[in-house]
């Protein structure tokens, strides 16, 4: 649930990456449009459009270099790696508590929240200073969490005591618990914020919780060891991955029923190695991405037909992922190879690999 924070609409391209204006240059020269490469990224130079009075202004054609910050939790290193998504390299490392896993950024972009399971708490990192400044009172062994649309409440799955904890982020207080199945893990919130879905790994269910009453309204059985729950942005479908079952269940959130299942088959890959975990779906709902764990691949799913379109080879034991806010790139955490793969979402190609700390687990990306 790393990227559960609302993503901004695609923004205009930053002018800083265009060719610098050089004073004194011949006014009517029109440099040809030619791509150049920096850190492996293709940029297009600006075309200079000149007015009759002889003033040239840069007219930007292309440039996919909007820089966001990606925060990657390294489960074994007890650190967060900060990646500059334009430069595609680690620009900083933050020391955190024991066993950082679930990670997200608050809606106001002020804090990175990271569940440090072995310290039984969630740490708050100030995005301005990159320092841990506070903690939130979760239950024992927090793993994944999601915030409500107002950004005020945080819902946390506590693996160790079969509960979902509700936390007031502002006041740093615990408001209550909801009892769920054994080993709660995945957390998904409906786009309208009315329904919270928690998956329990040993009970093998998606529990639908009414956020107003904090009561379970439905339980849907899915395949073994459900890890992750993701709604489509229009609220029409809920996708739940089953790590051991090897499937993704497509659930009708109104009828509370499984209406279809995504199955995976990779030639030459034994079926047990295909273990779906993280899920990301584009805003338009047309394309889904499912991390397949030790199969070292991301499956690309047609959002309408639920058929697998393609398997993208990434690093080893891929678990979670997050889009950049412009949805141009998808970053995946590859635990065993200690790196992050960068996928070009339009081209459906893996275009880069970034080394991070040990056993990268989750990733969250800032809005700016």
């Amino acid at each position: 649930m790393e990227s559960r924070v609302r993503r901004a609409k695609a923004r205009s391209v930053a002018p800083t990456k265009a060719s610098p204006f050089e004073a004194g240059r011949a006014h009517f020269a029109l440099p040809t449009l030619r791509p150049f490469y920096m850190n492996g990224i293709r940029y297009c130079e600006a075309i200079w459009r000149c007015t009759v009075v002889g003033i040239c202004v840069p007219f930007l054609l292309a440039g996919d270099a909007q820089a966001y910050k990606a925060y990657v939790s390294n489960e074994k290193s007890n650190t967060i790696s900060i990646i500059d998504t334009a430069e595609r390299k680690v620009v900083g490392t933050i020391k955190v508590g024991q066993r950082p896993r679930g990670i997200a950024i608050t809606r106001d972009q002020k804090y990175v929240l990271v569940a440090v399971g072995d310290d039984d708490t969630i740490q708050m990192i100030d995005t301005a200073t990159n320092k841990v400044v506070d903690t939130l009172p979760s239950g024992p062994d927090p793993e994944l969490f999601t915030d409500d649309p107002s950004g005020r409440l945080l819902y946390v799955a506590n693996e160790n005591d079969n509960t979902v904890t509700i936390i007031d982020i502002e006041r740093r207080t615990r408001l209550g618990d909801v009892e769920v199945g054994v080993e709660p893990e995945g957390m998904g919130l409906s786009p309208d914020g009315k329904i919270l879905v928690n998956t329990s790994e040993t009970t093998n269910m998606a529990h639908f919780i009414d956020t107003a009453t904090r009561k379970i309204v439905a339980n849907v059985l899915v395949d073994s060891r459900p890890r992750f729950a993701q709604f489509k942005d229009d609220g029409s479908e809920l996708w739940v991955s089953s790590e051991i079952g090897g499937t993704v269940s497509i659930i009708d959130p109104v009828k509370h029923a499984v209406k279809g299942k995504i199955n995976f088959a990779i030639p030459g890959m034994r079926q047990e190695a295909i273990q779906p975990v993280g899920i990301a779906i584009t805003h338009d709902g047309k394309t889904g991405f499912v991390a397949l764990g030790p199969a070292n691949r991301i499956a690309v799913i047609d959002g309408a037909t639920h058929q697998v379109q393609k398997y993208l080879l990434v690093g080893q034991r891929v678990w979670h992922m997050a889009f950049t806010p412009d949805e141009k790139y998808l970053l995946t955490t590859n635990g065993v190879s200690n790196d992050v793969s960068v996928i070009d979402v339009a081209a459906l190609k893996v275009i880069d690999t970034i080394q991070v700390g040990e056993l990268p687990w989750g990733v969250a990306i800032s809005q700016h």
Partner: protein
Amino acid sequence: MIRAVIFGGLILLLTAMLARAEPLTIKIGYVGRAEKKATISLLDYPPDNDGVAGARLALEDNNTTGKFLNQRFSLEEARVKAGTDPTDVILRLADHGISFFIVDLPADMLLKAADAGRARGLVFFNAGAIDDRLREEDCRADVIHTAPTRSMLADGLAQYLVFKRWLRWLLVVGSHDADKLYAEALRRAASRFGAKIVEQRVFEDTGGARRTDSGLAQIQRQIPLFLQGAPAHDVVVAADENEVFAAYLPYRTRDPRPVAGSAGLVPKSWDAAHDQWGANQLQNRFTQMFSRRMTALDMQAWSAARMIGEAAARINSADPQALLAYMKGPDFGLAAFKGQKLTLRDWNLQLRQPILLADGRTIVSVSPQEGFLHQFSELDTLGIDRPETKCRLK
């Protein structure tokens, strides 16, 4: 007439509502041994609730899930003395409405129990006996095996030793029947995976206490003496299921060699140090509930009780034969913190499972090792496979 139909309909509706409110109830029996086995190390001394504690934790897990499905699970425990007939105990529990039995008994007693339950349609889980014959010539259509076999354990170990290129084994075998069976499985594993047994020695059990006040001084001299004159070897492999000598081997061998098998690097279904694949959570739940560490027998019993819970959740039935059929089928899989789902070998009802290799402090490795391939499931590189089986399920 119309009134009668309406009345009948109302009655039907009421019955349906009542039936819905009544939870589906599944009663499970745990039948264990009355005696505890002697161990060399104090640390390995079995706790009183060894095995049944695992079943109890699984019951807790099943009932948490059952809360949402209107299903209830209960557990009754009984102990049987070695060498006695368990028939009466089984039938008494069956009279209490128990239809599933998790059994930790020696092979012959398990077979007697299964024979006693056959006419009543009872379903058994062998959680304790590792004898291959229970899955081969003595297999039964109503006995599921969650305990691994000797051949699975031996193959799991052999694959790792071969991966390490420790190919020359000095095999030391105890004098009990079980030790001979384990040695047989180890020999089979060595020839399957390309290791060589350079020599086999028998360590006689001459009786005597395992704990004496000044025993260590003697052992330190006895073990190298026992191992002297052996051909060149990479590893000492011990088959000692009765804990007579194997635990004395590490650090006392004549040549500086690692020890594996019944001591040193031990193949097992579970270990208190196993924390991968979410196992940490199960270990935590277990420790919280019982204030001790989870053993392999606990895990084997947990797996059995969870299999019942998993099948019941999927098909919403308490009928033992329906649940058994589902467990044998292609849709069944148990998530048991071993990195992949566990399924049943449909030809002998053995639970497929990875084998942990533990040194007492950490998990050194998990078999099957990479590169040991199989056309159906790599887990079937462990133990006796379908083409070699002598089992005809009846």
